[in-house]
Structure formats: C-alpha cells, structure tokens
C-alpha cells in the first residue's frame, strides 16, 4: 500500500509536468488547429535556457526559470512569425510537417550549443521529507505547487481577461470571431506566448526532476500528446486532467510492467481514448 501511495505521488508530479505541456498543445490545437510536433523540443529549449541563466549569468534558480520561460515564449512567437504564419494558408498538414522540422532544428541547436551529454542544474541535494512510509522530495512539492498556481492563473486569464476571452471565442469559431472584430493575429501571438512559456516550465521541471538532455522533451512528447487527447484536445481543463491521469497511470504501470515499457502506457491511453471516447474525457473537438 505504501509503495502504491509513493507511486501515486510520483505520478502526480509527472502528471503535473505532462499537464503543463499538454495545455500548450491543446491551446495551439484549439486556436491554430494543428498538432504542434515541436512542443517537446520547446520544453528542451526552455530547460537549457534556464541552465544558461544559472551557469552563464549566475542567476538563482527561480529568476533563471522565469528567464527561461520568457525567452522560450519569445522564441516560439519568432518561429510562428518566421514559419508557421506564412504556412498557415497552406493548411494544417503543412504546419504539421513544418513543426516536425522545427522540432529537429531546435534539438540540433541544443546539441550544437550544449553538447549531447547529460547535464544538471547543480542544485543542492535535499533529503526527502518522511510522512510515515511516504517520502516526499521538496522539489516535487515545489513542482506541484507552482503547477497549481500556473494553472489557476491561466484559468483566470482565459475567463477574465479580454484577450483570454478572445482566445476562447476564436477557439469556438474562428470565422465568427474575425467577423466580430477580434484581432486574430494578436490572439495567435498570445497563444504562442502562453504555449511556449508553459512548455518551457514543463521542461525545466522535468530537468529539475531528472537531468538535462537534448532528448528531454522529445521523449515526453508522446505522453504530452496523449494527455491532451485524453482530456479532449482543445480543452485546457481537460489537458490538466489528462496530464494527471496519464502521469499516475504510467507510474502505477511500473508496479506490473517492466519500467522500460512506461511509454507504452501513453500509447495505450491514446488508442483507448480514440477508440472509445474520441472527444476525450472532458470533451474536445
């Protein structure tokens, strides 16, 4: 029982990270209507930019993370202005191909600048807190708390702010939104800012929990997509639920499956959702 509970904690942390990635995938899908294949590699870039802040600029962890998220958000907008915006009229499949290319470009840039080795942020190793049989690492608690704060902030942004409402309108019906005078290009920019920033945060958390590696983000792209699909693609709240479900499911799977087959859980989740509930648990498009 204690072991299951422990796996549950790990699952929530992993799930929180998946959720932050999946929100971005879902937002982009809702507004721009394509599956953004470079999302995993945006996570990688974010994690490495934070490393740049720590090692080169000598910043403490938190400001370095904020810098990483900001730079990644700006980079994401730049990629959109440079490539995606010009390709948008050619249809969603061209964007799919292009984003696959962007994924590889980002990854090779990371490899060129930082090399292929594993790196760490060099934070002090803090012994885990003990709660009965349960061990909780402070890092994990920090990840969960920040995750909750970010998701709440995003929820408020989407429901209260003007641009957030415009985003939802555009997700519901882009033509109607354009007719109603919503500045669609501005909405697109905001979408990429949010998606990029959240992806970077997910990447930095993942790197904090494990190690930095050029494949960091690509390796979780499948569960991130799975989380977005499970929650109902295009549905932000669904992405959070999907992320948590997937994180917990893949950690719990290690109790019965060899750990090397963890990614298979994500695939099974995708197949199950697509076969039985194509619109996801909470309903998407």
């Amino acid at each position: 029982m204690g072991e299951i509970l422990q796996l549950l904690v790990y699952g929530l942390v992993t799930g929180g990270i998946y959720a932050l990635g999946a929100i971005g995938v879902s937002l982009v899908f809702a507004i721009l209507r394509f599956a953004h294949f470079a999302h995993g590699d945006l996570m990688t870039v974010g994690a490495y930019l934070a490393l740049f802040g720590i090692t080169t600029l000598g910043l403490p962890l938190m400001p370095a993370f904020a810098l990483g998220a900001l730079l990644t958000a700006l980079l994401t907008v730049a990629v959109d202005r440079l490539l995606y915006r010009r390709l948008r009229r050619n249809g969603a499949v061209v964007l799919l191909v292009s984003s696959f290319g962007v994924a590889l470009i980002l990854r090779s840039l990371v490899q060129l600048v930082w090399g292929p080795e594993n790196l760490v942020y060099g934070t002090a190793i803090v012994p885990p807190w003990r709660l009965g049989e349960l061990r909780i690492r402070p890092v994990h608690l920090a990840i969960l708390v920040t995750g909750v704060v970010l998701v709440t902030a995003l929820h408020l942004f989407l429901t209260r702010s003007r641009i957030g409402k415009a985003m939802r309108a555009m997700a519901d019906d882009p033509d109607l939104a354009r007719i109603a005078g919503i500045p669609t290009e501005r909405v697109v920019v905001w979408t990429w800012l949010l998606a990029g920033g959240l992806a970077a945060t997910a990447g930095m958390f993942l790197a904090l929990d494990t190690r930095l590696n050029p494949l960091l983000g690509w390796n979780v792209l499948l569960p991130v997509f799975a989380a977005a699909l499970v929650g109902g693609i295009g549905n932000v709240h669904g992405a959070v639920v999907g992320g948590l479900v997937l994180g917990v499911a893949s950690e719990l799977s290690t109790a019965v499956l060899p750990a090397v087959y963890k990614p298979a859980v994500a695939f099974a989740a995708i197949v199950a959702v697509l076969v039985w509930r194509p619109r996801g648990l909470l309903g998407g498009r």
Partner: protein
Amino acid sequence: MELVGLASFLVFFLTLAGIYALVTLGLNVQWGFAGQFDIGIAGFWAVGAYTTAILTTPPSPFHLGGFGMPFTVGAAAATLLAALVALAVGRICVDLRTDYLAIATIGIGEILRLVLKNEEWLTNGVRGIAGIPRPFADLGRTGQALAFLALVLAAIATVHALLERARRAPWGRVQRAIRDDETAVLAVGRDVRRFRLESFVLGAAVMGFAGAVHAHFVGFISPEAFDPLYTTFLVWVMLVVGGSGNNLGAILGAFAVWAIWSLAQFVTAWLPLEWAARAGALRVLLVGVLLQAVLLWRPQGLLPERPPPPVVRDERESR
C-alpha cells in the same frame, strides 16, 4: 588509385541513396497518395531489417534463430511482416484524422524501438545482430558492390513501375480523392477505411523491404545503429523536397537529399576536433532548414504532383 576510391565511394553512395529512395517511395504511398502522416517510418524499416536478420543469419545463441535462409526468403518475409504489423496497427489507427494518426505513429515507432531494444531473446538487445549475409559475396569485393547496386536499382525500377501503375489506376484516384476530400468519397459510397488501410499497409511493406535491403547491405543491425528519428526525418525531407505525390520526385528527392547529407559529412569532417562530436547535429540542422525553405518557397517540391488526366468514359476504348 584516387579514381578507384572515388568510384567505390560513388557505388556506396548510390546504393545507400537507392535504399532511401525505396523508403521514400513507400512514404509517398502513405503521404503523397493518401495524405497519411506517418512518423513511424523507422519502425517499419526496423521490422523489415530484423526479420531478415533473424531469418538469414546462421544459428546463434544470442537471439531468435538464425535460420540461415537465403536473402530472397528474408526480404520477402521482411516485406510481409512489415505489412502485417502495419495491418494490425492500421486497423486501430488508420481511420484517425491526420494529426491523430501522426501522434499514434510516434507511439508505434517508439514501442517497436523499445521491444527491439529490450527483448533480448528475440533481437540480442542493444548488442544487435551481426553477420547478416551479403548477397553476391562470391563475386569478390568489387563485383559484390556492383551487383548489390544493380539489385537496388532494379528494386527501385520495379517498385516505381508498380506504384506508378497503382497511382494511375482507379485505386490511386480514390486515394487522392480521400486525401483531398474524404467526405465526398464517402458520399459516393466508397469504403474509405479500407482504401486508407490498403495504402498504409502498402507503404509500410515497401519500407519493410527497404529495411531488409539495408540490413543486407550493412551486415549489422542494432537499435542504436541508426537514430530512428533521424532516418524518419530524412525520409520526410526527401519526399517533400522531391515532390509529394510524384513517384519520380520521391526517387529524385532521395538522391538529392542524400547527396546533401553526404556532402555535409565531408564539410563537417574538416571541423576542429571539439566540434566533430556535434557534426551530426549540424547536418540535421542543415536538413531541417532545407525542409523549411522548401515548404516556404517551393511547397510542391522539385517534381510537382501531376495527377493523370481524368478518364472520360467514351474515350476509354480509343486509348
């Protein structure tokens, strides 16, 4: 001596580019004809490579088999098994929307890779399978290389002829129609699901065959011998550069991109030592930029798709 070296490099280059041309032809069926976004290419390629490796190597205690069968049996079985895997996978995924299929194929590729890496009884795990026999070995070094190149070129010609026939046939028309307007095809009463499954399986079979040819060319296969994602990516760029939907374009794209990829290898070989380890990344970056440039400025590729002229019933006899 220089000339001999150059000639043997040329043969080597053409053989590898030719193998990639085969894979690209396979992807052209899935993407060019039918609009299916497959990034599990390396998975089908690996199924083919491992199938023939297990069937044709001499018995070994380290993996299943080997069964010491001839190359032809290995290649045929590789094609068949890749098709069967695609059939099993396709039954679940093939009627998904483009983006969903794309996501599902990442999963397929990933799981195949995990199985090949971790099921040691089957594949000898990360140590891979060595000693895959090379056909025409009794012709001597030069003769073998030339005969193998001839084999690859003949395979390209055959696969191209078959796919070109499929493209011009009513079957190809239906595939393009599904790609361009699925609802319309449904409305005229075609079994869209079945057509999609057929093109997915056909494409995967060609990829499996190419994987088998590659295994016999290199003589060794392991999960780490090539980066599956780079292979997949390279094949995608080849098709987009050559011209999706055009079989000749697929072949041309494969040779052109492989030439760039190989040239980049020469250039990066001159880099200082501390950069040499990162040369691979530089090449991927280059090819990635090439892809974006083509998408932006020549989305139809070097040889654009030319759909065969529509058939008017009365004219059919006179053709």
